[in-house]
Each structure stands twice: as C-alpha cells, then as structure tokens.
C-alpha cells in the first residue's frame, strides 16, 4: 500500500508498521514536525526523558527486556551528540536500537547552522550503520531497512538523520516488505563444523560451556535449547556478565559467572577444561585475563554470528558462524542422531573436581552487625525479591559485580547491565525503559551513588510517568572500583575517588516527588527493602554500606584464570608493572 504523506508522518507511520509502541525522546527545533505528528496520534507512547543519553539507555533497557528494538528520538546537534554514549554502549553490547535524529534542512547542511553537527560522521564508528536521508521518498525505505539492520545478524544500534525539510516535504509512503537489501546474515552454521564439535563433545573429559550475550540476543528459543543441551550432556556451564539468565542460576550445572570478578570454580573450570564451547561470547579481556595463559590445554569451539569475532582474540579450533538458536538446534540434532554420547564417567569426575573448587566458597565475606556489607545487602535483596516478577538493571562498578555474583537469574532478558562499554549512568534510564516494557514488574536498579548521580535527572521521567522503578543505591561515598584499583595499584593514594558533597538522597527523592528510604543498620535492612518493594512508585533506597569493601574474587590485570585473588590477604604486590598498564 502506498500513500502520500509528509516525511514527519512517514516516520510515525513506519514506527507503527514496525510494531513500535514506545519511543524515548526529547524534542528540539529540528524534530518539531515529527513531534507534531506524535501529538496527533495515540498508538505510540512517547516518554519524555530529561537528557538524550537517558533516552538511548532507556531504549536499550526496553530492547534488552523485550527482545524488540528500542527507539529513541532526539534533535540535531547537541541532541545527537548526547546520544553518542548510548549508541556506543549499544554497539559494544550488541543491543538493537533505532535512534532518529533531526538535522538542519538539507540546504543548510555544511553551513555551521544553529544546532548543526555532522551526526552521521560523528556516529559512524558507534553505530552498526547510519543514514542521512536527503529526500522524503527514500525515508520509508530507510526506516524499514534500519529496523532490519538493527535486528538482523549481530544486533546493534542504527541511526537515521532526518533533515527538517525532509520531514516537511511530502512523498510516497510504502509499508514494510521483507528486506531485499544485500545485508542478509546467514543464520545456519556449517554442519561439518557442528559435527566436529559434537564429536569433540562425545569424547571430552573436562568440557565446559562458556556462554554470552549472544544467547540472549538470539531469543528465548536459544536459552531453551541451551538448557536442553546442557542438561542432556551434564556439562558444566559458565556465562559472561552479558549472558546471565540464559541458563538458570538454580540449574544443577551452573558454575556462576566467569571472568575478572567471576567465581573461582568457573574460572578454574575454564583454565583446566579440555573442551571449551563458547556460545555467543567474544573472549573479552574481562573474561580471558592473560591471553597467552588462557585455558592452555583445551580444544576451543566458538559459535558466533559475527565472523569477525572468530579468532579475534583467542585462536579457536572449531569456528561456527551462525545464529545461536539455529546452531544449538543443529548441535542437538546431530548429537542425538549419533546416539547421545558423552564420556559420562569422565564428566562425573570433572564435576567432582568442580565441587571441590566450589567448597572454597569464593563469595564468602565477613559479615558485620554494625555496618551493612554490600554483599549482605544484595543477598537480602535476592532473598526478598527472587519470587517476584523481577528485572534488574545496574550501573557500573563494584555494585555491578556484586549484583552479578549475589543475584540469581533464572530467565533471559531479566538482567540489564552495561558490559562492554562500562557506562556509569546506564542503569537508571535503562530501568525506566524496562519498566515501560513491563509496567507491573518489579524493576530494580542496583546502583552505586557515583554512577547513579550521572543520570539522576531521570527522576523527573520516573515521577512524571509514575514508573515505580526502585533505585537500590549501595552508597559507600566512594567510586568503589576506582578506589579498589588505587588501593591495589597506586599505593593507596585515593586520588579523586570520593565525593565530599553527596546529596541527601531521601530529600532528593522527595524533591522530585518520589519516596526516599535511608538504611544504615543491618538490623533494619529487611524491613527497609520490604518497604521499597511495597511502595507503589519510584523509590530511592540509600543503603549506606561499608566504605572500604573490595570486590573479590578478582583476577588481577595481566594474570591468568588460575591466579585469582580470593580476599584481602592475597592482594599485596600482586599486579606487576606490566599488568598495571592494563585497565
């Protein structure tokens, strides 16, 4: 069906036709025609954020909690440049979002017009793809293609820059059709490689699944198939920060998260395994530690939809390019057709070895009756919320790692955290996006006070739309992770890693019209958390925690998986000069 309409109307029509129900945005001069069209309809809900970075993170949160692409709408110039952090974040974590930016009219481009920026130039390296639409007739095709690119293959952020005259002019709208563009990533993996992997699985004595965000991105079927495969083979499974929830934390083969602050048993299993099956993870430096000492004796298989992930960091023996769900389906088929074989005796003794490592109890910490330990706060949060329909977001830092360690994720799409870029200020706007997608769910943003302050303006958004997001701030009055590294690496010289002027978070909440809760006594913690859960509205929970707690276990920079630190006693002089240049 084709119809004449203005470019601005096309934008809204294309969003509707793409199934978009929510747009996060902030108006400005160069997007006024689109905002006018939004005003004139009721199908798409627009959420007015308080900063464009918030719009993009909210769109990311929405995308991660639903599996659908998130959409943000911002103006030209500063609107677009404020979106850059969110775009980069989505690129690093492979999150499908579509960002629409206004642009000065085509005849003014290049004249240094008011609020002009070279948006496609600035965002070229931080988007999967971007477009500057120069005529109205090409706008609908570009809009539809943008959704196709954002959600196909390895998902990612895309941006469409729309000059204001293109929004005003009329053209012919066409509804979405299956994409005919060149960009059509292959989903099925190579059967020969898959068979080679199955053969390796049949004889492996010390296998481990190492899974990542790719499983979540592939959709619920991928998590379902992963569970089937893991439980049928009995192989242990660990996951990156990005992949938590793909396999349930309560599952019997679950090792916990791996990596720099991963669990002892997970990292040792990675180091000692003889078959590593990487599914949708990318051998990130937080995972591998010292590359030349990474899992030295294993055969490695790698399933990834992005060919450039293969052999980028770690040389693998069995590369399989394809979509996780498609490949897992084929692995299961081939494995079953060959008689469901594993070396069960060897795997059993491998599991016994892992159980020995588990006895180290690497997440143990010294509790206190006087101050709230952050780990304790998260244990209590877990206990009191795990039976709720719960979604967790985080900011970035120690609290993020503790949340990954102490909270259990039973399902995919329940955990929103900035993994690749490590964006402080991500979690709060993300929680707004999640709550928009799931209005009745319990959405908690586990935060540090420093990260949280980076996008605290979004309290206005939460209150305006009555979004009952719970901001669970582990307040140590420090940039905790920075402080930890300064302690370990820089002679305890705590250069600028604390704030001497923190707000009173309870009053801050009240100033925005929300509820504030302060808790500093471990004895009050449960009641305070229950009060937070039961309050029907946004809450800032100011949890005053131990100020100098360090996050363990930890693989120091430049060290291997089997050189992890379990506690304070082991930290003296552990990072050599070579390691200290790493981040």
């Amino acid at each position, binding site marked *: 069906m084709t119809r004449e309409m203005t470019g601005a109307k096309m934008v809204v029509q294309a969003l509707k036709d793409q199934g978009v129900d929510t747009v996060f945005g902030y108006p400005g001069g160069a997007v006024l025609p689109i905002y006018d069209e939004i005003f004139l309809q009721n199908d798409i809900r627009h959420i007015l954020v308080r900063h464009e970075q918030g719009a993009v993170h909210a769109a990311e949160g929405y995308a991660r909690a639903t599996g659908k692409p998130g959409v943000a709408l911002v103006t030209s110039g500063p609107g677009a440049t404020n979106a850059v952090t969110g775009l980069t974040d989505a690129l690093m974590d492979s999150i499908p979002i579509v960002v629409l930016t206004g642009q000065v009219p085509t005849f003014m481009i290049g004249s240094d017009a008011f609020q002009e920026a070279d948006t*496609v*130039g600035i965002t*070229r*390296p931080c988007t*999967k*793809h971007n477009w*500057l639409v120069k005529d109205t007739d090409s706008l609908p095709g570009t809009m539809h293609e943008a959704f196709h*690119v954002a959600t196909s*293959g*390895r998902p990612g952020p895309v941006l469409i820059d729309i000059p204001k005259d293109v929004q005003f002019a009329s053209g012919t709208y066409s509804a979405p059709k299956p994409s005919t563009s*060149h*960009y059509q*990533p*292959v*989903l*099925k*993996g*190579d059967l*020969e*490689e898959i068979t080679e992997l199955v053969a390796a699985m049949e004889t492996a004595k010390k296998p481990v699944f190492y899974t990542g965000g790719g499983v979540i991105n592939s959709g619920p079927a991928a998590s379902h198939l992963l569970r089937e495969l893991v439980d049928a083979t009995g192989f242990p499974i660990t996951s990156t920060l990005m992949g938590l929830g793909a396999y349930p934390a309560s599952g019997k083969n679950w090792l916990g998260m791996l990596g720099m602050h991963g669990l002892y048993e997970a990292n040792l299993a990675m180091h000692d395994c003889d078959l590593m099956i990487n599914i949708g993870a990318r051998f990130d430096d937080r995972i591998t530690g010292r590359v030349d000492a990474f899992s030295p004796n294993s055969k490695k298989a790698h399933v990834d939809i*992005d*060919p*450039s992930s*293969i*052999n*980028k960091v770690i*040389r*693998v*023996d069995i*590369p*399989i*390019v*394809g979509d996780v769900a498609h490949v897992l389906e084929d692995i299961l088929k081939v494995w079953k057709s060959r008689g469901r074989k594993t070396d069960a005796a060897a795997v059993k003794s491998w599991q016994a070895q892992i159980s020995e490592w588990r006895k180290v109890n690497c997440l143990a910490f010294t509790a206190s009756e006087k101050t709230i330990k952050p780990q304790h706060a998260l244990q209590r949060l877990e206990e009191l919320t795990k039976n709720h329909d719960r979604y967790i977001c985080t900011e970035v830092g120690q609290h993020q790692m503790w949340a990954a360690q102490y909270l259990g994720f039973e399902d995919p799409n329940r955990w929103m955290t900035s993994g690749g870029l490590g964006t402080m200020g991500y979690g709060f706007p993300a929680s707004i996006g999640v709550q928009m997608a799931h209005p009745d769910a319990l959405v908690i943003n586990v935060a540090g006070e420093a990260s949280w302050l980076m996008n605290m303006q979004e309290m206005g958004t939460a209150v305006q739309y009555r979004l009952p997001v719970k901001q669970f701030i582990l307040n140590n009055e420090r940039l905790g992770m920075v402080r930890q590294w300064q302690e370990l690496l820089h002679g305890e010289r705590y250069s600028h890693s604390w704030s001497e002027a923190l707000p009173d978070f309870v009053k801050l909440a009240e100033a925005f019209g929300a509820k504030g809760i302060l808790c500093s006594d471990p004895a009050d913690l449960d009641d305070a958390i229950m009060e937070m859960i039961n309050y029907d509205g946004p809450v800032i929970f100011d949890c005053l925690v131990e100020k100098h707690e360090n996050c363990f276990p930890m693989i120091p920079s430049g060290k291997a998986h089997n050189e992890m630190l379990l506690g304070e006693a082991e930290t003296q002089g552990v990072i050599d000069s070579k390691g200290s240049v790493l981040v």
Partner: protein
Amino acid sequence: MSALHIKKGSTRHSAYNLRPTFSDVQERHTIAVLVENEPGVLARVIGLFSGRGYNIESLTVAEVDHTGHLSRITIVTTGTPQVIEQIKAQLGRIVTVHDVHDLTVEGPSVERELAIIKVVGEGDKRVEALRLADIFRANVVDSTLNSFIFEITGAPDKIDAFADLMRPLGLIEVARTGVAALLRGD
C-alpha cells in the same frame, strides 16, 4: 572464494586452522572490496582502518558498476596473518560491503599503478632521464626546455625503482594513483 576467506555461515577455512599459531610475520596483502556506492562508504572503510589501528599502504576507489551503484576499493595493507584475517572479517561486516577478496591469497593477480613524475634538469642528466624512461617504458606527457613529466604504469615496485633512479636526475614531484588489482584468469 579463497581458502582463507571467512565466508558468512561457514568458517571451515579460517586461516588459523592452516597456520601453526598467531604468527608475528608481517605480510603484505592486496584486498579488493566491493561496496555500495553511497555517501560515507569510503569513510566507513577508512574509519575502520584508523579506528582499529590497521595500516593502509595504498587505497584506490572508483565506481565500477554504474547501474548496480557499486564501487571497488583496492587496499594494500600489511599485518600479521591474524590482523589480515581480522581486517577482512571487519570489512565484511560493514553493512554496505558486498564482497571482500584477498587477491594476495586468491591470486595470482595483476597489480598496476600509474604515476606521473616531474624531473627537472639540463644537459647529461636530462638525456639520462629520457634514456631511463625509455627503458622503463615511461611516456613523456609534458616537456619544457628544462623539465619532463613522465607517465609510468606498472607494479608498485617498478614505479618505486623508476622514481629512485630519477631522484639524482632532478625528480621534484611524484603523483601516484595507488594500486588497482584484478585476479588473473577467469
């Protein structure tokens, strides 16, 4: 398709199955990239190289299929085998890239470059320059009483050699097109 080209959907032939380890040996490869001729596509390719720290020794680009709006970018780059594989895979994931060919691996290929070289001199040097140009099959495309502009076509090595010879004879300026390359045969 080359044995070393990572094909979407199958990486049976990833380079690292064929090579013992991540080698430190620097290799020089000529890569042909077929791209949609849309605004910014060259910036995407160049941005990829600068952003990820890859080398560009030479780069040429021009539209080669007007109806299909396709341009061909020929890039000469150096790197370890791992880096070369990464470059090809990274190029391949640019949305508007249609095809990536490593001519050095898929070869044999023909590589040609054109240069125009200005040489200023008098007397014996001028005569010698003209004589050498003849040996290299360079054409004189402009002449004054004390200068020549030579046009020379060939593999980059040949142009390097000619320019080196012209240097003591009064070479003052060189303009080179960069490498264009095609696989031999059909």
